[in-house]
């Protein structure tokens, strides 16, 4: 067994892991990032929609290499076909750019490498090194060889699987109602409006979730579905609903599937703590996905930056490891916890709606002028149109 020593070992080379590695390395930390797959970013498990705010949030140049398309907004479509539009800046963390996730993830890993982070692909962290009540690194396997990687701080950025964060003892296990299971086809030969992402909601389309069409161009789109696990009595539920949706659509007729992705997103509240002595979880592993939209790229990357910067200050001697982890815990919550809590509540409400209620809701929201779109304005419109429906949302403020 080979032994390696680092300030920080990051497990997982997704957007969350790469951001931690990039910012910690920039701060002067000796960082190693492990990715079990042989290629960072591939295969893709994502609808590839992200808010443009990601540029400024993690200091990125908008490059044609990873941006496939730019959209103006999102359309939310009800079972009866009524819809409302949200401009890109209001539409949450999945609308703005349609990206090429494989190239994007690799780009983020390269930015980490440029700052000096070491990266090992085809390397799986198999277990945690726990000593004296602290986590002190991981055991890993790389091309058939065993490694002992010791680190002051171990970071679980291992995505939805979250084996590491759960093994460490964080409360990141999920209830059925807090999981959406997904499948997506990249389709060629569609007739898409390249200016809008589309979200089809309602139990008939996708029980407890939605169908999405994210256009990469006029001819190419990601067509996918998320179904709440509560409503999945047996396997392949998302696939059956997606096939039904596609068969019903003129604009997808004859389009060819060039890629299939599967996956799941947490639609939960994050756990009360995502840190332990010598340990932090980030991104999907810490259940930071927006529970309303299922978008997690921006949140993972942003939280990764907060953690990386705190770890940089740790190696500069400005913070002890305990202080750095406490600063991370405070920092990421400040950036997104209120939003996550509000959207969790919204998700819980929407989960209960019948298709008729969903129709009423979307018609009511569609009547509001875009500039006035706030939670209060939505509730007012719903109250005027359907007092009984407004009742359901009364505790929302």
């Amino acid at each position, binding site marked *: 067994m080979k032994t390696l020593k680092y300030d920080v070992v990051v497990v997982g080379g997704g957007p969350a892991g790469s951001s931690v590695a990039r910012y910690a390395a920039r701060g002067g930390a000796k960082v190693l990032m492990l990715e*079990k797959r*042989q290629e960072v970013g591939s295969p893709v498990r994502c609808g590839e929609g992200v808010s443009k705010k990601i540029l400024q949030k993690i200091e990125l140049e908008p490059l044609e290499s990873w941006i496939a398309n730019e959209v103006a907004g999102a359309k939310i479509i009800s079972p009866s076909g009524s819809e409302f539009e949200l401009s890109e800046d209001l539409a949450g963390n999945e609308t703005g750019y349609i990206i090429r996730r494989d190239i994007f993830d690799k780009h983020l890993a390269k930015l980490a490498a440029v700052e000096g982070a070491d990266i090992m692909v085809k390397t799986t962290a198999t277990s945690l090194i726990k000593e004296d009540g602290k986590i002190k690194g991981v055991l890993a396997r790389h091309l058939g060889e065993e490694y002992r990687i010791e680190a002051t701080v171990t970071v679980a950025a291992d995505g939805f699987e979250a084996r590491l964060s759960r093994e460490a003892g964080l409360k990141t296990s999920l209830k059925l109602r807090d999981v959406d299971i997904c499948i997506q086809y990249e389709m060629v030969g569609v007739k898409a409006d390249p200016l809008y992402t589309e979200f089809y909601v309602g139990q008939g389309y996708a029980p407890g979730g939605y169908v999405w069409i994210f256009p990469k161009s006029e001819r190419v789109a990601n067509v996918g579905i998320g179904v709440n696990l509560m409503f999945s009595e047996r396997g*392949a539920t998302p696939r059956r609903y997606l096939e039904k949706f596609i068969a019903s659509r003129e604009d997808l007729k004859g389009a060819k599937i060039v890629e299939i992705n599967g996956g799941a997103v947490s639609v939960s509240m994050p756990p009360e703590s995502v840190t332990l002595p010598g340990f932090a979880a980030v991104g999907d592993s810490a259940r930071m996905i927006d529970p309303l939209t299922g978008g997690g790229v921006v949140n993972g990357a942003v939280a990764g930056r907060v953690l990386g910067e705190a770890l940089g200050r740790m190696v500069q001697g400005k913070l002890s490891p305990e202080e750095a982890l406490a600063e991370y815990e405070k920092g990421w919550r400040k950036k997104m916890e209120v939003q996550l809590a509000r959207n969790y509540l919204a998700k819980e409400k929407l989960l209960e709606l019948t298709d008729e209620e969903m129709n009423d809701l979307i018609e009511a929201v569609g009547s509001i002028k875009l500039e006035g779109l706030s939670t209060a304005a939505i509730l007012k419109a719903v109250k005027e149109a359907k007092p009984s429906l407004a009742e359901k949302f009364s505790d929302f403020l």
Partner: protein
Amino acid sequence: MIRVDKEKCLWCGTCVGVCPTLALTLKETYVEVDHERCTLCGICVRACPVGAITMEGVEK
């Protein structure tokens, strides 16, 4: 016993993330089952987006 059909599996990790007992591991291109840990709760069977997991006596 649960079984994962390698020909259907998308290597997506959904089953791994929902398994309450950490009985499943995604080894890049296949899912490994730790039968000692598996309680046969059936959650992974329900969760697999393509129906690659079956449990004896439950569904074929």
